């Protein structure tokens, strides 16, 4: 239809042309000409440094190292490039065999990553990515030497996903650090990273990570396909990708999950998911994503399973309270007063005596005020945020009730809703949308309105898929085997299969029946895994 409309309104030229891939200019053999080429590409930016020197090999050769200040590690440039080329090269009488540039690569440079290239685009990209380019007069090839090194944030605990007993480390902005953190968690050769560059201008490094042998190959293929499809100027953050690759772009429910924690990422990979690392952001996307993942917290697995189960119920309860409480309040007080016990009704009526607005308006307005406070609190500097909460509590909580503008029960309901909505952080945005919609519907049609709203939501949820996996699984469609981590969190030794809903080839996670027993019973017991290949 969009094509139809575009044709109709003559807007076809707005469609983005797919980028032409020119071969790129070749290098000349003259150093000055090559440098001119680079200047032409990179301009006269002050951060582009060209260090000329004389390479004293057999005969003196004019050479230059070109890099961007700030992106490189000065120490590496000095120790591994300039020192060998300028000092070490003089010390011995070298017998250069073959191509000069190969000789340099093989004998002089003491750096890990060196690439040879004779075309401008690749070299420019390498420079922009923090590599240094070595140009030698008389060679029509250049070396891109890995000298990346820039200011990094150290590893800290992520602010958004804190745990009580879990590890205190979170991803950083550096993709290498991140993949290394993951490697440290999973020492399996099956852990694979596939790198690609997305973003025509930003050339952001993006890595797909998965554990071969656990992951479904089709899933990886699908992720690859969706990522390759992306053609955009910039990828600055994980969300830039997830909006491009999610299954239901219009759905407010997140079908690609985010995490900042390596332990969470490792767990998800070992369940057969795929993670997508994006350079420059501490956030990692994982897919496929199920609805229940929002209710699974890393701490669930760090505490006793009974407690974890109870906390999970609290989380479910809080989620539903956060969505439904204002709507129920409105429906009860404006449509179904018969449901409220008589004494409570009379005291509620007493509290609402003389309040000028309908309850729906009160609830929506108070909800809006709360959202404003929340947004202000998030954006402001921390010390001022404190002030906001005090002002909010005093002004909104106390003064409006005392002035008779808002009834006290409304304030209680909104406050409870607000707190409840923070319990499940990943579904918070959808919570706000649903809450507002349901409150409106409750204001129009009472409980019937709530039901209609919930039905529409339910239909939407059941029709959602994330990378082919039904969003509500393993609840709908019901998979009895996968119930071990939904309503209850069973003991870890009982979770002997990986969740089947995502559908990978080998479901067996661990040997069966490892519940701790007395030594007598343990004797002679075989805990090896059941046939692994069966699934």
């Amino acid at each position: 239809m969009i094509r139809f409309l575009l044709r109709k309104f003559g807007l076809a030229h707005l469609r983005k042309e797919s980028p032409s891939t020119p071969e790129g200019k070749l290098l000349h053999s003259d150093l000055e000409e090559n440098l001119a080429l680079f200047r032409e590409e990179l301009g006269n930016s002050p951060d582009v440094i060209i260090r000329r020197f004389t390479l004293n090999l057999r005969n003196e050769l004019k050479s230059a190292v070109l890099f961007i200040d700030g992106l490189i590690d000065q120490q590496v440039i000095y120790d591994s490039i300039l020192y060998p080329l300028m000092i070490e090269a003089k010390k011995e009488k070298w017998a250069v065999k073959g191509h000069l540039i190969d000789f340099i690569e093989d004998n002089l440079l003491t750096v890990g990553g060196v690439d040879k290239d004779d075309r401008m685009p690749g070299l420019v990209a390498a420079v922009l990515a923090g590599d240094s380019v070595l140009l030698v007069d008389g060679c029509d090839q250049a070396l891109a030497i890995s000298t990346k090194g820039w200011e990094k944030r150290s590893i800290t605990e992520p602010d958004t996903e804190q745990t009580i007993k879990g590890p205190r480390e979170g991803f950083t902005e550096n993709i290498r650090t991140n993949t290394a953190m993951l490697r440290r968690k999973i020492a399996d050769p099956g852990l694979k990273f596939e790198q690609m560059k997305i973003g025509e201008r930003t050339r952001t490094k993006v890595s797909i990570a998965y554990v071969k042998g656990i992951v479904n190959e089709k899933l990886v293929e699908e992720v690859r396909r969706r990522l390759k499809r992306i053609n955009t100027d910039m990828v600055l953050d994980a969300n830039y990708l997830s909006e491009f690759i999610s299954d239901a772009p219009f759905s407010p429910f997140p079908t690609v999950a985010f995490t900042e924690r390596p332990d969470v990422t490792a767990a998800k990979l070992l369940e057969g998911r795929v993670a997508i690392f994006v350079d420059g952001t501490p956030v990692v996307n994982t897919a496929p994503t199920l609805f229940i993942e929002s209710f699974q917290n890393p701490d669930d697995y760090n505490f006793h399973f009974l407690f974890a189960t109870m906390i999970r119920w609290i989380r479910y309860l809080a989620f539903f309270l956060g969505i439904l409480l204002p709507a129920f309040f409105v429906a009860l007080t404006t449509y179904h007063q018969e449901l409220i016990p008589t004494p409570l009704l009379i005291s509620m009526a007493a509290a609402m005596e003389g309040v000028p607005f309908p309850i729906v308006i009160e609830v929506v307005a108070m909800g809006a005020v709360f959202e404003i406070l929340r947004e202000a609190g998030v954006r402001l500097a921390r010390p001022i945020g404190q002030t906001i909460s005090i002002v909010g509590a005093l002004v909104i909580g106390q003064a409006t009730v005392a002035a008779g503008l808002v009834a006290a029960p409304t304030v209680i309901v909104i406050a409870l809703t607000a707190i409840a909505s923070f319990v499940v952080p990943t579904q918070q945005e959808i919570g706000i949308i649903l809450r507002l919609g349901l409150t409106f519907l409750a204001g129009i049609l009472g409980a019937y309105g709530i039901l209609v709203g919930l039905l529409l939501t339910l239909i939407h949820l059941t029709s959602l898929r994330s990378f082919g996996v039904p969003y509500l699984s393993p609840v709908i469609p019901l998979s009895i085997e996968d119930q071990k981590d939904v309503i209850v969190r069973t003991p870890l030794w009982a979770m002997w299969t990986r969740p089947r809903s995502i559908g990978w080839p080998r479901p067996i996670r661990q040997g069966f029946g490892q519940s701790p027993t007395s030594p007598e019973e343990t004797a002679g017991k075989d805990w090896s895994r059941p046939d692994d290949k069966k699934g």
Partner: protein
Amino acid sequence: MEEGRISSSQLSLLAISYLIGTTFLLSPGSQAKQGTWLTILLGLGEALIPVLIFTTLAKRFAGKSLIEINDLVWGKIVGKLFSLVFLWYIFHLGSASFAIFVALFKTTVLIATPEVILLISGLLSCIYVSKKGIEVIARTNEVLILITVLLLILGFLLVLNIFNANNLFPVIEIPITRLLWATQESSSLFGQTIVFMMIFPYLNRRKSCTGAIIKGLVVAAILLMSSAVRTTGVLGKISESYIFPNYETDRLIDIGNTLTRLEILPVLNFLTMGFIKSSVSLYVTSLGTAQLLNLRTYRPVVIPLGILMIIAATQNYPDISSHLRFVENIHPIYALPVQIIFPLITLLLAIIRRLPCQGENQ
């Protein structure tokens, strides 16, 4: 036309919802007074006849819907006529389901709200889910039926303090002919499962249709029987004076003077079942119309047929008690051709004509 596949257990659950959709409110066979549960049991037995007939037909033509079977067996013209009657029947069931819930809401909670608003808001979800296809209907139903069963159990527990077993006796208070008629009435309600003749082709194991439908019938009958027992046990004789006996039972809930007047919750819950009934009807009518007219997709006809359905809902009956009489007296006869006669003669003719031919049965 429809890419989704459902499992046989999902079909059973759909059948349960379809059967209890409206009957929960207008308990069938309530003319049998205390013997309502008995007529439901007898009706279940009787309903096995049509169920066996049409499932045999479905198995014989595996992968074909009723419309396609009619075309195959009867030829283009007569077949389409049969299909039209069938589609009309399902359409009528869907509209009646809309109408009953509107009646309930107009007399209990939303008295001043215009009928049209209630109908449109209900229709919205039905259209949405019908367009999504059978898979989504079946999955949505899974959640709803779970909640329904839980709430039914809860409803039972909440009235235990006012339940009076004496009200259940004597079981048979009415003449035996009346009892038989009431049995016929509940049997014709169970026979409504013929709607699934359109859905059998989307079963992932097609041969399992008989078992799935019978499982659904039995569970639905148990649910209906338990709610009949609950109603008579709590309300006693007065239950026959009420239009919505089940609703009245929930009105009487009173636990410690705090949990009272909970009727809105079961009502909403029954409404979800009615929603499934309307949605399945709308979906099947649309799909059937599309197959009848050789369309490539059923989706464009969902909205127009939905609108026609709610218009039919407003024009279903002049008042609710006349609908009760319709269900009691006319529906058992009205349903007979669609549920038994047409499938039976289709099956017989298929056997005589040795249809389907070898190789066609894929």
